[in-house]
C-alpha cells in the first residue's frame, strides 16, 4: 500500500476511498480546512464556543475514592462528561459546524450510534442556525430512544436506518449516500476519526484539545507525566484526542479499550484491532471486522457508540508501530465498571467510557502509588441507565 508521504495517510493507513461523486466535496472540504485551521479568527471563534458554550476546559479530577478502592496508582478522570451535551463529541461538532458555516453550507448531516454525536451535531446546528438531519440505525433508535427525542427537540430530523445491520456502520453508509445526493449546501459532520481524508486528521485536531488540556493539568497537579492514558475506542475520536499530545512522550503508555462484547473469541464482538483485518471501507484503508470473503461483519457491543466494525486509520498506525496498545473489554467488565464508578465516585459514566474505566482499574495496579494514570471519561451515563437496568434484569424503559 501507500506510504506516509501520500496525502491523508498514517503509515499505510488512511486515504480517500470514496466514489468520484464525492471527490469534489472532499477536495473542497480539504481546502477549506487547510485555510481555516490556520486562520486566527476561526480559531478564536471556535475557542470562544468551546469555552463559553461547551464549558471547556474540562476538569482533570483526581478520583480519590476509586484510587483507594483499587489500591494502585492515582487515577485521574478527564471529565469530558461535563461538557455541554455530556460528551467529548461536542468538541468536534462545534469545530465542523463552524467550518461548514464558513464554507457557506446551510445544512448538516451526521451519523450517530449511541446518539451522543447526533445530539452534539443537532446542538451545534441549533446554535449556528443550520438545518440538521441525523441518520441513526433503527436498532440504535430503540436502544437510545431518549436521545432521539433530544435531537428532535433540538430541531433535527432523525432518520432511522433500516438497511444492513441497522446500526452505526449502516448510518454511515446512509450519510455517505445522502451527501452524494446533496453536496452543494450540505456538510457531512462525521463523528469520529474515520472516513476519507481529511476527516481523520480534522476530527483528531478538534479532539486534541482533550490531551492538550490534560497534559498541562497533570503537570500542574502532579509535576510529572502520567504513566498511562486510557480511553475507549470505537472509531476512536476520544482516544485519539486523549492520546495526541502525549504521543511524543515515550514514557506514557497509550491504551485504547475496544468493545469485546461477549468476548473476542465469539462472533458477538466489536473489537476491531483484536479481531479485524486490513481492508478498504468507509473511505479509508484501515482495520475492519470482516468475514472470510471480505464482507463487513456484523458487530456487537452493549455500547451503541463502540458498535462499529472499523477503527480510525491513525489508531491502526499507532498499533502498527507499537506506540499505542489496544485491549478488549467485555460487556460484563464494562457494566461492572459502570457500577463501580457510580458507587465510589458518584459519577455515572457513559457505558462507552466505562470500558476505559474497567481497564484502568486493572492497569492502575501495575504502577507505583506515587504514579498516576489518566482515564478519558468521554461521556456521562444518564443515557445508559435504562439499558444497564435491563442488563441487570430490571424491566425499565426510557
Amino acid at each position, binding site marked *: 500500500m*501507500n506510504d506516509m508521504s501520500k*496525502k491523508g495517510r498514517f503509515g499505510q493507513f488512511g486515504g480517500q476511498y470514496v*466514489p468520484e461523486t464525492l471527490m469534489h466535496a472532499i477536495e473542497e472540504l480539504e481546502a477549506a480546512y487547510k485555510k481555516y485551521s490556520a486562520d486566527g479568527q476561526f480559531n478564536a471563534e471556535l475557542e470562544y464556543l468551546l469555552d463559553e458554550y461547551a464549558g471547556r476546559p474540562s476538569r482533570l479530577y483526581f478520583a480519590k475514592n476509586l484510587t483507594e478502592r483499587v489500591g494502585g496508582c492515582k487515577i485521574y478522570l478527564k471529565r469530558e462528561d461535563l461538557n455541554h451535551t455530556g460528551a467529548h463529541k461536542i468538541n468536534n461538532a462545534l469545530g465542523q459546524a463552524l467550518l461548514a458555516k464558513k464554507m457557506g453550507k446551510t445544512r448538516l448531516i451526521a451519523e450517530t450510534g449511541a446518539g451522543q454525536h447526533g445530539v452534539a451535531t443537532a446542538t451545534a446546528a441549533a446554535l449556528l442556525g443550520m438545518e440538521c438531519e441525523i441518520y441513526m440505525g433503527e436498532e440504535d433508535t430503540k436502544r437510545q430512544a431518549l436521545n432521539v427525542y433530544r435531537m428532535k427537540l433540538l430541531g433535527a430530523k432523525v432518520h432511522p436506518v433500516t438497511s*444492513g445491520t441497522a446500526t452505526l456502520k449502516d448510518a454511515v*453508509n446512509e450519510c455517505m*449516500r445522502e451527501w452524494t445526493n446533496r453536496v452543494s449546501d450540505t456538510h457531512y459532520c462525521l463523528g469520529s476519526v474515520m472516513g476519507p481524508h481529511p476527516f481523520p486528521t480534522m476530527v483528531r485536531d478538534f479532539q486534541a484539545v482533550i490531551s492538550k488540556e490534560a497534559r498541562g493539568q497533570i503537570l500542574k497537579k502532579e509535576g510529572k507525566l502520567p504513566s498511562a492514558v486510557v480511553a475507549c475506542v470505537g472509531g476512536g475520536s476520544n482516544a485519539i484526542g486523549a492520546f495526541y499530545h502525549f504521543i511524543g512522550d515515550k514514557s506514557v503508555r497509550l491504551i485504547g479499550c475496544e468493545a469485546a462484547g461477549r468476548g473476542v473469541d465469539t462472533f458477538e464482538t466489536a473489537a476491531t484491532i483484536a479481531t479485524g483485518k486490513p481492508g*478498504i471501507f468507509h473511505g479509508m484503508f484501515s482495520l475492519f471486522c470482516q468475514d472470510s*470473503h*471480505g464482507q463487513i461483519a456484523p458487530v456487537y457491543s452493549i455500547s451503541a457508540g463502540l458498535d462499529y466494525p472499523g477503527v480510525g486509520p491513525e489508531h491502526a498506525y499507532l498499533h502498527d508501530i507499537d506506540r499505542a496498545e489496544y485491549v478488549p473489554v467485555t460487556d460484563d467488565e464494562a457494566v461492572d465498571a459502570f457500577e463501580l464508578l457510580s458507587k465510589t465516585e458518584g459519577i455515572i459514566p457513559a457505558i462507552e467510557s466505562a470500558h476505559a474505566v474497567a481497564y484502568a482499574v486493572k492497569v492502575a495496579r501495575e504502577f507505583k502509588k506515587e504514579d498516576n494514570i489518566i482515564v478519558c471519561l468521554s461521556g456521562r451515563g444518564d443515557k445508559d441507565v435504562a439499558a444497564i437496568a435491563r442488563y441487570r434484569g430490571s424491566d425499565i424503559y426510557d
Partner: protein
Amino acid sequence: MIEISKAFEGGKKAFVGFITAGDPTLADTKRYLEIMQDSGVDIIEVGIPFSDPIAEGPVIQNADVRALSGGVNLGAIFEMVEGIQKKVPFLFMTYANPVYFYGYARFFARCRQAGVSGVIIPDIPFEESGEVKEVALNYGITVIDMVAPTSEERIKKVCADSQGFIYLVSSMGVTGMRQKFDADISSVYARIREVTDTPVCVGFGISTPVQAGEMASKCNGAIMGSAIVKIIEQYGSKADEPLRSFLTEVAAAVHAV
C-alpha cells in the same frame, strides 16, 4: 476475453447492462447473463455483491442482500462466469474491499481466467487507483474510470489514461431510477473529448428504452442497472421472458440512435 472496444466498433452505440451475481441464485444469474448477451446487451456488468454498497440505491442494495443471504461468494462467482461462452465483453462491478481481501493479483488472475475484460470499483477514485491499475494491467484487465457531474477540473487527470470506456455518472446520489438528470451530458462529454477518445457511457438512473436512447445519443452508450435488477426482484427465478423482452426493447432504442 473480448476487448471492450469491440462494443463500440464502427461508431456503434453500446447498451451496457448490469445484474447482481447470485440474485436470486447463481444458476439463475448464469441463465440471465446468457439472455443478456443474446438480447442485444453489448457490455455486461456482473455485480459482485458487497455488504455495504455505498454507491447503490435501494434496488441494488436489496439485490446484494438477496445474493449474500443466499450464500454467494467470489470463488463461486468466478466459476459461474467462467462457464459462460462469451459473445460480448464482461466486466465485474464491485467494491474495493472484496477485491482487496481476495488479493489484487489473485483477483485479476482469476478475472483473466474467467474471461472477464474489466472492472468497475466505484469506491476507488482516481487518486487511489494507481496500485490496483498496475496489478490489473499485468493481467490485461481494464479498470474503468468514472466521471461525475461535479468532476469538472478533475476530468483532465481522471480521463487522461482511461481505458475501455469512461463511466459518466448522470446525476449526483446513488444508483436507481430517476426522472431527471443533473449533468448536462453533452457539455461534460465535450469536455472529456478534449482529453481523450475513449468511449463514454452514461449511467445512474436510466430506466426506460426512451431514456436509454436519449442518453446514448449524447455519448457512446447507455448503462442500465436498477431497472434490470428490478425485473429480477419482481420475477425471481422466472424472469427469463420479462428480461428478454425488456432488454430487446432497450437494445433497439440504443442501437437506433
